[in-house]
Structures are given as C-alpha cells and as structure tokens.
C-alpha cells in the first residue's frame, strides 16, 4: 500500500515548528483583517452605494465613496499580508496543500486572474468614481462578487487539503485540475461563516471610521457608528447559526474534539463565541450610549480577540482533521538561526518604516 500523503522532503525543517506555527497564526491574523474589509467592506459599500443613490441618504453615499477610496489599499494589504501566511502554511502543511491544489489546479490558478480583475476594478472605481455613473454600482458589485468567489476558491482548497486520503481517488478520476470540493458538507457553512464574519468586521470598521471623523463631522460619526453597529450586530447574530451549522457539518471525530475530547479546543471556541458576541454587543451599546468612542474601542479590542480565538479554532479543525488522516509533523529540525534573526530585525525595520511613511501621509493630510 503506497501512502497517500506525500513523503516529506529529505530536508530538515528550517525552524522549530512552534515558530513557524506562531508566524502562520500572526501573519494570517494580519491578513484576515484587510481581507475581511475587502470581502465584507465591498458588500457593505455596494449596498450603501445602491441606497445612497437616493438624495436623502447622503451618509450612505459618503460611506460608499470612502469604501471605494480605501479598496485598492485594502486589496494591496490583503495580498501583501496573505503571501506570508501562505508561505508558512506551505512549510508546515505543504504535503497536503500542494496535492489538493493540483486536483483543483485551474480553479486555484484562477485566483490570480480574479485578483487582477477585482484589483483593477477597484482602481477604476477609485479613480473614476464620479464619471462612471451607474456603472460604478455595477463595478462595486463586481468587486464584491469576485472577492466572494476568491474566498470560495480558497475555501475549497483549505477544506479539500484536510482530506488527503480522498485526493488519490479524486485525482485518479480526473487529473486535469478542474475539481472543486462542493460536496463537502462543511464548505458552504464555512464560507457563509467567513462572509458573515467579514461583514461584521466591516461593520466595526465603519463605526471606527465614524469615531475617527467625529471632530470634523459629528453627524456622519453618529450615523456611521449606528450603521456599523447595525451590520456588526446583525451579521454576528446570524453568524451564530452559521457557526453552529459549520460545527455540525464537521466530521464526527473532529466534532468530538469540541464536544469533550479536547478541553483547550472547547475553551478557545467558547471564548471566541463569547468575545465576538460581547464585541458586537459593545458596538450596539456604542450606537446608543453616551461615550461611543470608548465603546467602539472596547468593541474593537474584544472583537479582535474573538477573531483570534476563531482563528485558533480553525487551526484546531485543520490540525485534528489532518492528524486523523495520518498526517504527521516533520521531526527533523535544523533551525537557520542566522536568517531567522535577519528576518526578525528586518520585520521590525519594515514595520517601523511603514508606520513612519503612513504617519507622514496621515499627518500631512490633516
């Protein structure tokens, strides 16, 4: 019997697994925020654009304009931060990832074309919003639809790679790279959960944008906090059901990890649910309370902590699914400490440089 899971390279892992895992989690979290703002923000922005076309909703028109201006930068941040996460994913889980990617090869490669399409559409909107007329609405929906499609393609790969034993049969049936994982019961609840989460985070961002502008435009600030709270609260509420659907769709042995076998996994999941609900609740409070800035700040911190917990839960699903399929971690490590140290120093330098440049731009603007 030939093992279905590819054999590791006869090369040592270039860093301790914990370090690679920590960087995967960190970079994925950093990627997740702009990615949520692209996915959820493009939906919120498109809705605001449609509704803002009525003359009595100037704030929604203003929000649509803000989304359009921010979208190229958000897409850029999503891609830039995403490549690091994908890099560390491939070091740790490449044996499952590559095989799955080949089985859905053309779909996986289509991400590149879709990204270029949505990126240029976002720039066209940003540069020509005023002159595009009704086409601007179409383009806004195009950006949202393509972002959702890219997320679905990613979801296909991320779920298919969890079933390495099925990949051999799938490949034997068709090796042209045209298959998707549409019959996986977790795919659509997972996708729905991600899209609703992105809308919730984008609602939070709308509220944050409102608070940031409260000194210049108090009316817009008040409206934005309420509007954002509405999206965040509604999406989070619905997402509870989407999350339960996803949980119920998990394979039995994976589900059991969250039902008593692994107390840490249960704790992280419950903390995630609690924190996201609290975060959304705080945002609703911000919309109705007297100190919205404080409540929005508290909501941001709480929701971000909730996102971290959800991210860890997602990682647990992946780890457990692969372990159950027989996937084993590489146990030959020869850390490249010199390059690791250089990376660490350069990362600090890059963060400092980027902060200096963005601060210079923001200060100059004000």
């Amino acid at each position: 019997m030939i093992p279905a899971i590819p054999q590791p390279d006869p090369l040592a892992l270039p860093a301790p697994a914990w370090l690679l895992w920590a960087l995967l989690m960190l970079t994925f979290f950093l990627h997740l925020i702009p990615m949520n703002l692209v996915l959820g923000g493009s939906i919120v922005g498109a809705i605001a654009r449609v509704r803002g076309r009525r003359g009595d909703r100037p704030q929604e028109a203003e929000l649509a304009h803000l989304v359009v201006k921010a979208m190229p930068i958000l897409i850029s941040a999503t891609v830039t931060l995403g490549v690091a996460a994908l890099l560390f994913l491939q070091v740790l889980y490449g044996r499952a990832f590559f095989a799955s990617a080949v089985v859905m090869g053309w779909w996986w490669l289509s991400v590149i074309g879709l990204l270029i399409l949505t990126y240029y559409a976002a720039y066209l909107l940003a540069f020509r919003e005023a002159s595009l007329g009704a086409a601007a609405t179409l383009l806004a929906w195009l950006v949202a639809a393509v972002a959702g499609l890219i997320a679905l393609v990613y979801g296909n790969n991320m779920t298919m790679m969890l079933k390495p034993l099925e990949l051999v049969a799938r490949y034997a049936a068709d090796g042209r790279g045209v298959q998707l994982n549409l019959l996986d019961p977790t795919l659509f609840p997972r996708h729905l959960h991600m899209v609703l989460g992105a809308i919730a985070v984008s609602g939070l961002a709308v509220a944050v944008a409102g608070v940031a502008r409260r000194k210049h435009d108090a009316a817009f600030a008040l409206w934005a906090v309420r509007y954002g709270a509405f999206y965040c609260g509604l999406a989070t509420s619905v997402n509870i059901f989407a999350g339960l659907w996803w949980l119920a769709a998990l394979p039995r042995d994976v589900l059991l990890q969250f039902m008593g076998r692994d107390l840490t996994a249960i704790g992280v999941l419950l903390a995630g649910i609690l924190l996201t609900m609290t975060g959304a609740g705080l945002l609703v409070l911000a919309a109705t309370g007297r100190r919205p800035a404080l409540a929005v700040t508290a909501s941001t911190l709480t929701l971000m902590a909730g996102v971290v917990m959800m991210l860890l839960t997602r990682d647990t699903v992946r780890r457990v699914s692969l372990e159950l399929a027989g996937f084993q971690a590489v146990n030959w490590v020869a850390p490249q400490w010199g390059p690791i140290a250089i990376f660490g120093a350069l990362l600090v330098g890059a963060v400092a440089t980027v902060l200096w440049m963005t601060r210079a731009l923001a200060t100059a603007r004000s």
Partner: protein
Amino acid sequence: MNYPVWDIPASGLLIAFIAIVHVFVSHFAVGGGLYLVLTERRARRGKDVPLLAFVRGLSRFFILLTLVFGAITGVGIWFTIGLVHPAATSSLINTFVWGWAIEWTFFVTEIAAAMVYYYGWDRLPARTHMAVGWIYVASAWLSLVVINGILTYMLTPGAWITTRSFWDGMLNDTYWPALVARTFVAIGLAGLYAIWIAAWLQDPDLKARIARDAAWRWVLPMAVAIPLSLVWYLGAAARAGVPVAEIFGARDAGVPALVSAVFGGALTTGYPVAQRAAWWVVVTAGALITLTLVLVLRRSRNYGRPIAAALMLLGFVAMGGSEWVREDLRKPWVLGQYMFVNAVRVPPPDGAPVPPAEFIARFGADRFSVDAINAAGILKTSAWVRPVPDDLLSPADYPSRAEHQGRELFRTACAACHTIDGYLAIRPLVRGKSPEALTGVIAKLASPVDAAGAATAWSTAHLQLKTWRSRRMPPFVGTGEERQLLAAYLALLGGATPSSLAASSPPSDAGRTYYEANCAACHGPEGLAPFDHDGRKPAEFYEMIGRLPAINEMMPAFEGSDAQRKALSEYLASLPRPAPKGGAK
C-alpha cells in the same frame, strides 16, 4: 511522483508565459522606481514643471502596472510552480523559507512606499516625498537581491549540494553576475517604459527631452552593460559545471564560440530550444538598440506610439528570450544537481546531512531518489499512478495493459516537458520506432559522470550528465519492465499496432538485440538516417564500429563488448538493403 502531476499539456509553457510577463513588469518595478525619484529630483532642482507633471503621470501608470499586475503575477508564478512542480516548490520553500520571509519584509515596505509615494504627491513635503521614493527604490532592489539568490541557486546550487546551508545556496556561483545583469536590465527597462509613456505627450520639446534622456542615460548604456554581465554570467555558469557549450552545441563556453554556434550552426545537436531562444535574444536586442538610436537621433520630437510599442515589444522578446535561455541552461534539472524536472531526486552525496533515524522511522527512507525508484519502480512508488483495471490483468491483455501503464509512466516521468502532439511533442520522435529501439533509447537518456567524464554513482557530489545525443533529458528511472511498458506505449503512439506489440519479444540474436537498443532509433526504417549496408562485409563493419564518432560526430562511441561488436557486425551485414532513397552508410 510524490505529488500528483497536473494533467495539462505543456505545463512548462504556462510557467514560462506567466514568468516572462511578470519579469518584464517586476524589473521595471525596480528600475522604474529609480527613474521616478531621479527624474523627480531633477525636475524639482530645475523647477521644471512639465517634467514634474510627467513624473507624476508616470507614477500613476507605475503603481497601476507594478502594484497590481506585477505583484499579482509574481504571486501567480508561485501558484503556478506549486501546481506544475509541487515537489520542487516544497524543496525550495523548505530550504529558503527565511529567504522568502526576508524578501517579504522588503515587499511589504516596497508596496507601502509605492502607495505613499503616489498618494503623497499633493500632501507630502518634497523632501519627505523624495525620501519615500528612495525607500521604495531600496526595498524594491533588495527584494531582487533576495529572489536572485533563489533563482540562481536553481541553476548553480554550489556547495549547498553537500552542506545544505542556506547561505551556500543563496550566495552561489552565478549569484553576483545574475544580480548585476538583472539590475542593469531593470535600469534599461525603466528607460524603455519612459519612452513608451512619453509617446503620449503632446509637447514635442518635453517628449524629445525625455526620450533623449531615457535613451542616452538608461537604455543605451545598458545595451553595453547587459551583454557584458551576461558573458560574465555564462562564464560563471560554465565554471560551476553547467554544460553551456554542450547546450549551445559550441566548441567551448567562450563568447565567440557561442555566437558562432547560435548563428553559424551548432556543432552538436545540443538543445535546439535554447539555441533558438538565444538567436532571438541577440537579434531583438540588436534591433532594439538600432531602433533606439534611430528614435533618439532622428525622431525624438515626433515619434509616435507605434515606434514606442515596437521598442517595448523588442524589449519584451529580448528579455523573455533571456529568461528562456536561463531556464534551458538548467535542463534537465528543476533544482540543479538535486532534482530533475520530473521530480526525481539524486541521492545525497557523501557528507550531506541525511534524515535522522527518528525521521526514517516515521516516514521511511527517501522513496523518490533515482536509486530508490530504480529498485522499486514508479508504479509501486507513486500513489498518483492510476491502477490497472482488473479486466486488463491477464497476459493476453498485454497491449492494453502496456498502453494503460505506459501512459501513466509517461504522465509521471515525461509529461513535465513533453506533450503528445504539441510543444516538445513526443509522437514525431517515436513515429515508426519499434519497442526494442525505444527501450534502448530510454535506457540511455542520461547517466551520471564525473568532471572527467567517467561513469560514477548518482550520489556523486557535483555530478555531470552524459545525455543521449546531448539532449538535456533526465534519466529514465524505474524497473526494466517499466522501461519496456513505456517503450510499448510510445511505440503505440508512433503507429505500432497492438498486435505487433503482443508479438514483440526480446530478440534472441545478440547482434539484433544490440542494434535495436542502440542504433535503430536513428537508423531504423523511419529514423533520421535509415541504415544501408551498401554491400559491406562484417569485417568492415567491425572496423567502422570502433570509430563511430569519427564517421559522424552525432554518433556515440560503441560501448559494448567485443562479442557484441562482432555480433552487431554480422547482423548489420545481414540486413536487407532498403529501397534506393539515400541514407546512412
């Protein structure tokens, strides 16, 4: 073999297409940044408002092209190599994850700087704006500095083969010449792009100033510097063991010999794709220089978009051709002296770090080295080979089984480069060949030799390859039976009938056996040079067989025993003469 083979024709062409398009933009992303800040500085110092407006317009084009198309196609190359060469990508990532992580820090800075530079035109003070521009230039070039190490490692891994050290791989034999060449290319491309954008200008004075500056300071100096750096690069590659001369069919790896081979015809077969690509590079680069000179001397005030487009096209072909040559220099390796294009590895040489016992206990010994696959066979090593259907298992079904398993072997071992009828098509190469002849050729595709050309083991450090008629092919790995199955499949592709396959059995005559395995591929009835003994006696053939390369340099030297030489002589003399239409004598 360790990973599934993406079942698409000419997957290598897909990589080439995305890679060439990407490098044409990504090198502009490096050189173009330098052009922007230097031109901005000149415009600000000279209070040259039209020039400053031009730079500003160029910066918009710059971010739209480099941040979107350049950055995303760069990710596209990564996606594509992961699909086409997952095993190689996995090895690269395992070796250079920190190289990519370091490059990522520059990438993040580069992208952010480009954004701030563009959005900061009206907001930032001039001094800060220029500083951001210089941050962009530095981070974009440093990004190239890192990626260049990984790219050159793939051709000349150097001491990494025995040390597996990150720095040995990164700072390899061709690192510096390639870095210098790529930097010059980036500078030259910046000039080309400037000429392209200036073609849209209405002001003839401004257009002429920009075109002359771009031509004299950016394009034409690089037209001298780039060839010099490429000569350095080819020399370094040859010294590192890349068979540059053999690939180009040249006497040696010197420039005169290479140019002579490319334009005057190769001395040996070599690798025709690389030779044609090199021809295109030289011709288009020459045309590019000529056209640039014409533009700058005669038409700088009123040149239009067609001439600018022609320059861009010539630059694209020259650059694409260079990348093509670089890729072909590496054949048949995907990772030099470590992994062949079909994902088969050579065993680690003495002294190289090998997996510890606990790793072997968990994952087993390496199943995908040449020696391991030769022992176990592809069909019993790769999980991605489709099993034989039950109804083809009986001996009577041999032709159908051979077709099925041969196809799987072809997909696994050959399809990384060959298609059936398209790019590097296999069918024309096997048309009319017998399974025996094909089995013989397959056995000789490549074998390991040392620097002196003596046969050696696959685990030899810095081994060279002795390839069949200088074709840069990996060795066939697998069992003898698998070799016959592949040969049978290829024979079917070439027109053999299933019934002839069923009837074929290894020839009992020693002379015929040797002939079929070693001579028939070229000298069979459908070969390049069908054999005609012209009435010669066995003794004459015996003498001629001892000096085959002297008779025709395309023929390899006879390597069999004396008994085989006698048997072959007898067999050749006994062959019927073909119908008179010329042929080998």
